[in-house]
């Protein structure tokens, strides 16, 4: 176990490091940010002076070396715009991001697993067909479109829910439902197909032959077996939910990491972008790490090895 943890931790470090390196160089290709922060009447000489202060005039490898040196100590520099700690700014958005991602995940799992199980169990029934059709539609809807539609319906037309902003549980409903839609569709389809797969297995026949009632057959036996691939998928998608909710965060003005990252990207506020990448890559790796442990938990074949 310790071996596993050490090995995986090393992997996490390598992945995060490589991700940062890639983004560092990629983002420098997108241009010099200095002039964007200055008033438009700044002369070229003055822009140059600021570049020097901000360190953008130095060779790229020097900047990279410095970045790595500082990053190792947990210092991602200051926001070019506000001068605050970049990492601090990203971390401050993290609770909102977690809140949105986990409630979306929660909603998705709550709906998709029973739905997928039921659809698989009642294969080819009307229910199954409707469920499958719904998931296909769910995967085909662009999320901002759905988001605007929901705002239009629930916030403007019926005044039931707030249209945007962060804060309370009620603010969370529309964005998390919007974000969850795609996952619900994806998880439902996946649950259904893995369940179908499992239900064909010999050990299910065995259980049936021992007189296991249908309910416990599906819920107890098949579901636990299906959980293994489902956990992997959820772990993969949680990363997307955490960092990829940009569109939903923009539509619903949700103060999360994705929106900060997009704005920083547009503002060319590099330190924030890098700190954001670091956090997202790190969380993603951790989530996968946890998924692996969970995976072992439900899959005895791996656990014992």
């Amino acid at each position, binding site marked *: 176990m310790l071996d596993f943890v050490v090995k995986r931790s090393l*992997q996490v470090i390598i992945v995060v490091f490589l991700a940062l390196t890639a983004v560092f160089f990629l983002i420098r290709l997108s241009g010099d940010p200095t002039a964007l922060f200055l008033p438009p009447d700044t002369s070229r000489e003055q822009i140059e002076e600021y570049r020097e202060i901000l360190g953008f005039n130095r060779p790229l490898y020097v900047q990279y070396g410095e970045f790595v040196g500082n990053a190792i100590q947990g210092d991602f520099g200051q926001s070019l715009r506000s001068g605050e700690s970049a990492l601090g700014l990203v971390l401050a958005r993290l609770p909102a991001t977690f809140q949105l991602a986990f409630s979306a995940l929660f909603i998705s799992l709550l709906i998709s697993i029973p739905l997928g199980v039921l659809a698989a169990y009642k294969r080819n029934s009307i229910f199954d067909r409707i469920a499958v059709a719904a998931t296909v539609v769910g995967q085909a809807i662009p999320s901002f479109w759905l988001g605007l539609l929901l705002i239009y319906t629930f916030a403007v037309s019926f005044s039931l829910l707030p249209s945007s902003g962060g804060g309370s549980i009620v603010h969370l409903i529309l964005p998390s439902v919007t974000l969850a839609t795609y996952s619900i569709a994806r998880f439902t389809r996946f649950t259904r197909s*893995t369940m179908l797969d499992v239900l064909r297995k010999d050990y299910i026949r065995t259980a049936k032959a021992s007189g296991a009632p249908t309910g416990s057959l599906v819920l107890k036996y098949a579901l636990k077996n299906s959980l293994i691939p489902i956990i992997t998928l959820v772990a993969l998608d949680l990363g997307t939910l*955490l*960092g990829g909710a940009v*569109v939903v965060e923009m539509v619903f003005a949700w103060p999360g990491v994705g929106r900060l990252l*997009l704005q920083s*990207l547009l503002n060319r506020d590099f330190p924030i972008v890098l700190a954001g990448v670091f956090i*997202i890559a790190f969380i993603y790796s951790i989530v996968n790490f946890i998924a692996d442990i969970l995976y072992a938990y439900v899959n005895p074949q791996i656990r014992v090895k």
Partner: protein
Amino acid sequence: MTTKSEVNVVKGSTRRKSLRITNFFKKLLGNWSGFVGFVIIFLLIIISIFGKQIAPYDPMYTDFTKKLLPPLTEGHLLGTDQLGRDVLSRIIVGARVSVIIGLVTVLVAGTFGTIVGIISGYFRGWIDVVLMRIVDVQLSFPFILLVLVVSAITGTGLRNIIISLAIGGWVIFARVIRSEVLAIREKEFITACVATGVKRSHILFKHILPNLITPIIILGSLQIATYIIAEASISFLGFGVQPPAPAWGNMLSEGKDYIFSSWWLITFPGIAILITALGVNLFGDWLRDTLDPEFVE
């Protein structure tokens, strides 16, 4: 792509079924949703090829006196936009952009991802470790953010969008193909080939590659919809194919500001995307169910 869906007989693999043109249509007709998907795709391709001829108006023609006409007025079936251009015509001509983005991205990402997957899965060893680390690095970064970062660097425009999407999308092919190759490598017929001294390149191209065609086709067809929707999303965030070129993504993006005044501007392109994604997904699902029911993305 649909007319070429003939798939080689899969040697040595029992779970996959072959599909030849003759029974392709027979099977398709027997499946309602697959058939609907196919019809949507077929129409889409026709529209994207002959869009300019089909469109009732020039999609770029602006007439300020006729701006923001609601649907079914003055000969504009779906109304006009903020510059008085015909919405229906723009949707029809815009189909090409979506089709190109979907197909070309799948082609680029699929080719690259497949090559990486094959190399990784077949040769194993250090190259596999290196490539899979790269895949991990990229996967540790959400697709849409990656596409945004790349778009911010490469700039906008159809070509750059495709590049960004492909950079964001190849990993999934690499991963899936790698695991397929790993599975095929373990099959008895490959062992038999190795045992009888067949050349490596021969094994790779004559035995492994044909077995990959089915998963590639299935995965590719399912990814197309993802790319089309992703393009719309990055258009929404301001990076997609830029106006004045008619594309569904930027129509939606421009139209969203009119959600309260001119609902048709955001409704119809959205429906177009939805129907397209629906069609592609239905067809992809059917392909999977027919060719390889156990295929998992």
